[in-house]
């Protein structure tokens, strides 16, 4: 069991997962987004090889309307 905080909300997962698997689970695969893991940017090309560990803090952001 691992706990991840995604955009400030806690999510529990039954097994180890990669960032790419997490995004697929959240139905975010293929979207134009950027991810910060524990304060560090994860390049999009590395989503597949980025394992997530218990307690990881993730920020997943998109572009929205703004001035």
């Amino acid at each position, binding site marked *: 069991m691992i706990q991840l905080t995604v955009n400030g909300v806690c999510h529990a997962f039954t097994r180890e997962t990669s960032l790419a698997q997490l995004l697929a689970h959240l139905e*975010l695969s293929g979207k*134009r987004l*950027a991810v910060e893991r524990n304060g560090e*940017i994860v390049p999009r090309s590395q989503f597949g090889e980025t394992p997530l560990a218990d307690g990881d803090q993730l920020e*997943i952001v*998109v*572009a*929205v*309307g703004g*001035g």
Partner: protein
Amino acid sequence: MDPLTIAGKAYRSRLLIGTGKYKDFDETRVAVEASGAEIVTVAIRRTNIGQNAGEPSLLEAVPPSKYTYLPNTAGCYTAEEAIRTLRLARELLDGHNLVKLEVLGDPHTLYPNVMETLKAAEVLVKEGFTVMVYSSDDPIVARQLEEIGCAAIMPLASLIGSGMGILNPWNLQIIVANAKVPVLVDAGVGTASDAAIAMELGCDGILMNTAVAAANNPVLMASAMKKAVEAGREAFLAGRMPKKLYSAIPSSPVGGLIGS
């Protein structure tokens, strides 16, 4: 052709427009089109998790293939938050470096915190960002931001979202006179005449959002702003006549009046 050149790249339009506060993405799209803007600001926010998988997105209404995105740091109150946000923006936009830095100092007035802005600008410029920076209309702050290496200085004309117009044309003129990088009014424009006045002062461009989005007819206002920015620019280039209290020289010939 009289382009606006920012960090070596030329743009035809001197009007930059925000994509926030519209009724829906359709209105955003049509208003942005009517404005003629090539650069549009966007905000960077947490994505919704586990909902609205197929919801419409800004990326479809205002595609980054057609417009130059200018990600902003709206809502950031520290240099650190602003820097983090723009690093994410750069990743999100495939290495795109052109950004709008704004660090706010107060949630009621949205007045910029210039100390934090200067700190953030220093880091971002070192990291290779092309920084267009929102600031107060203090000419010394403007000069320091330029010395740090910001690509454009964007003083407020009045407070964000206030629509109060150009409250201190004198400071704007000092900033314009001293700057070697483009100066764009960011914030405060309420209607077309405000935009024209800013351009007549010699500003290189204007960034606005609320003046268009909060108009009764945003699309028509976007069109008005396009014309006002162009008219103001042409008037600046043309050079206005001097102001005089009165003139003894009428525009029509003095002689040849009937019955003389």
